[in-house]
């Protein structure tokens, strides 16, 4: 197992290095001169050239890349071109918000989806299975802004249980923020629900066919013991992987949902940076996003390996 972990970590580092290069190169070829962006359209050529020199934009690309990556690793993420403030505290603040939202969404989505998936899988081909499968598919087909707006319409306007606007204050605690997190989290749940539930269902159906389930049943164990103790342990393995991977998406992929609810998460921060051509901010946010995805994946692999004795004890 330790060998497995070390190898996975090695792959992770390699992935991060490669993506950091790609991010750096892409931001280089984007149109627009950063010095010009900072100084504005009226600034003279000379001032722009001087700023380019100060920012190190005339150095060879490799030098710029190494400097940028080195600074990033040591915690110096630079200053935003558009706001003139330090990038790191800003991104960290947004990251915290995104994580709060992700946690609430996971707490709602996972138990619900797993429950529905197991329920459907144990009743394959029966009416309950059909209802769950069809309705979860119907929900996943709706775009997030539609479900988001419907939720606002219902639970903020008709029955004002939750606020329609989720723009939480900068220093809000989790408890204070919670009411504002429910509706966006529900919207994200709709996207994840069908995915996780269908995978769980498939896992349960697949495992039920295995001869060891017959062995367990023929021991005289009750149906619920067989399901709980024998089937789920193996059937949920792929589900757990998918949940871990979806954490990455929940933290950094909710751009549409954040916009619908005006939620100050990392997705909206990225939109903001792109809108302003704020190169260092863009780079920092993308790199953080990649980091989150990479670690979510690593987590998924490790959890899977740990739960699966065939890998753990290799």
């Amino acid at each position, binding site marked *: 197992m*330790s*060998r497995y972990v*070390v190898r996975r970590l090695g792959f992770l580092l390699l992935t991060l290095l490669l993506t950091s290069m790609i991010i750096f190169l892409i931001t280089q070829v984007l149109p627009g001169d950063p010095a010009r962006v900072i100084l504005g359209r009226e600034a003279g050529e000379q001032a722009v050239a001087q700023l380019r020199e100060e920012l190190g934009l005339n150095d060879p690309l490799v030098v710029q890349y190494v400097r940028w990556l080195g600074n990033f690793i040591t915690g110096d993420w630079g200053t935003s071109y558009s706001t003139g403030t330090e990038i790191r505290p800003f991104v960290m603040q947004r990251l915290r918000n995104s994580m709060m939202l992700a946690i609430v969404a996971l707490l709602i989505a996972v138990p619900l989806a797993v429950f529905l998936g197991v329920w459907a899988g144990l009743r394959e081909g029966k009416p309950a299975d059909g209802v769950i499968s069809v309705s979860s598919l119907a929900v996943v087909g709706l775009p997030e802004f539609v479900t988001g707006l419907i939720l606002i319409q219902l639970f903020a306007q008709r029955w004002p249980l939750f606020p329609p606007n989720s723009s939480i204050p900068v220093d809000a605690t989790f408890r204070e923020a919670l009411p504002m997190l429910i509706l966006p989290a529900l919207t994200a749940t709709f996207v994840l629900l069908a995915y996780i539930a269908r995978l769980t269902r498939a896992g349960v159906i697949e495992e039920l066919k*295995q*001869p*060891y389930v*017959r*062995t*367990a*049943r*023929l*021991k*005289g*164990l*009750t149906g619920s013991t067989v399901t709980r*103790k*024998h089937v789920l*342990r*193996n059937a949920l393995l792929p589900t757990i992987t998918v949940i871990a991977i979806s954490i990455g998406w929940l933290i950094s992929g909710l751009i549409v949902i954040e916009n619908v609810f005006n939620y100050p998460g990392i997705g909206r921060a990225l939109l903001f940076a792109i809108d302003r051509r704020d190169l260092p901010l863009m780079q920092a946010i993308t790199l953080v996003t990649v980091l989150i995805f990479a670690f979510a994946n690593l987590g998924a692999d490790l959890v899977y390996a740990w*739960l*699966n*004795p*065939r890998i753990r*004890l290799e």
Partner: protein
Amino acid sequence: MSNQSILTVSNLTVAYRRDRDWLTAVRDVSFNVAAGQTVGLVGESGSGKSTIALAIMRYLGKNGRVTQGNIDFMGRDLVTGSDADLRDLWGNHIALVPQDPLSSLNPSIRVGEQVAEILRQHENMSQNAANARVRDLLSMVKLPDPERVARSYPHQISGGMQQRVMIAMALSTEPKLLVMDEPTTALDVTTEAAILDLIRDLIRERDTAVLYVTHDFGVVGRICDRVLVLYAGDLVEEGTASAIYHRPNHPYTRGLLASVPQLGQSKIGFQLQSMPGQIPALGERPEGCVFAPRCPVAVDSCATWPDLATSANGDSRVRCHRRDEIADGSLVVDYSAEMVYAEGNRHTDRDTILTADNVAVHFPVTRTMKQVLRRDKPDLVKAVDGVSIRVEPGRTLGLVGESGSGKTTLARTVVGLTGRSSGEMVLLGSELPTGLKGRDLETLREIKYVFQNPEETLNPYLTIGESLRRPLMRLRSLSRREADAEVARLLESVRLSADYATRYPRQLSGGEKQRVAIARAFATNPALLIGDEAVSALDVSVQASILNLLNGLQAEHGNAILFISHDLGVVSYLADDIAVMYLGHVVEFSSAEMLLQPPHHPYTEALLSAIPNPDPDQEQTAILLSGDVPSAINVPSGCPFHTRCPRYLGDICREEMPPWRDSAEGTRIRCHIPLNELRSEQL
């Protein structure tokens, strides 16, 4: 032994649903099993034997149901009983030992816990009491170090150990009835012998009633008191194991027994009988006698369903209109083979087709972190470790050994699918490049391979004709039209009609697919044909026809054959020369005639003794080998067999690789024990 009846099956009819129809899979079968009695359910695939076993366990699945009849277990009706009734019986009074132990154990629960949960369920044992009992049970099935086994996950123990765990599990609650569904079929022959002995001892001690499902008459002879022979869902013959073996009176039972090569039968002077045709599919079974379409003595009256009745000599009950004629000997059931081939050798100008000299195949094992940091060399799996063989034209070399012996790896190096680490190979006088890349078309033409599983070796999207045309056009540069003509000829040579060319693999039975695979191998008339367990996946009646086919084709074309099998009966029937492999080494060379004659290598001796004898009246004692085959990473020093050898001498076996010893009869044995000593002890 009491004669209390434990299980009574009356007029059992089972059907499976296909679309809207219920197709009868088992028809009107009645029998009973008494305490202390072992009843064998024997048949080929599609005979309904597993269906009966599953009906008794009431585990037919959604698509199967008992449409008629009763199954009575000690006064309780298993067909109509409630689920709660069955949960009380399952694991408690009735237990199943399945065929494949690995997939029948939960991969993510420790073995000990999987046994313990039965005890907690049925015996109300506490956690600690159950765990202690589990260790007793594991030692009862002779597992070394039960503590460690109990803590292991299924994948960490060998197949034989897994099956012992399943047996411990089944016997944990001292059930009255044990249903065993081919429990040794997936195991090596020496492991099988040990498991069969274990089963026999345990059920005798406990007076358990056993229903034993198998396709193997050897196993029947070893363990069963009574036998039910099934064909296409009908019980065609029933009697004592001895009567069925010595005086079978149903034409199917006769054919079945005559199609399995017994040890000592050789292709020279003994033609296997092969039944024509195949078991009818579900839904296509004739109304009358189900065997009539394949029966050599069928008459008009066979269109009506015969009774199951005692034949004239009174031994067994037979479902055949002509049972009395067969029993008194006035009617001979003969499936005599139909083909006669002319001799004609292609490579007779040479005395050797292939030589392998000191060939080794070592695979590096992925290193651990520690080994990488310490810059250790990776461990090696020594799959083949210094093997020299010679294959002669028109002759068959049989490679025998259990799983892990390296026989398949050796064959793969010959065909070029696996590279060799060292050693030389010479084909038809020229050096054979190690991998496929270095080989020219000429070489590719001369070596062909027939794999074990015909289901997986034909491309499901190509017609049979397209599959056969490829080697013809690519390796023999025939035009499309010439190739099509040749396809017809090839199909005919494996006794399939030319219209098979337009069919897809899914439309063929397993035996027919293997014929196509053989036709494909013969497309280039190779100098060397490799058959890797080429009949192991087939039913015995089909196996016989494939063996006859190989013999006929070889006699006609003079090809050399390298035939690999774990089945000594099959190898000694088909082969002229035999090499016995153990853990990457050849330990004995023998001619097929001399294989049964001492001196033997101690490993060969154990193998031979382990093969179950189908004659129930002969006492058989297998030489049981201790433990499992060691890992090929840590091949024992000296003689690789010394860790399990029943004739272990001492330090010399551990320290020195034994010398080759040549007997006067031409047998070569690699052992420290002198031949005359082996011979005198093995007589």
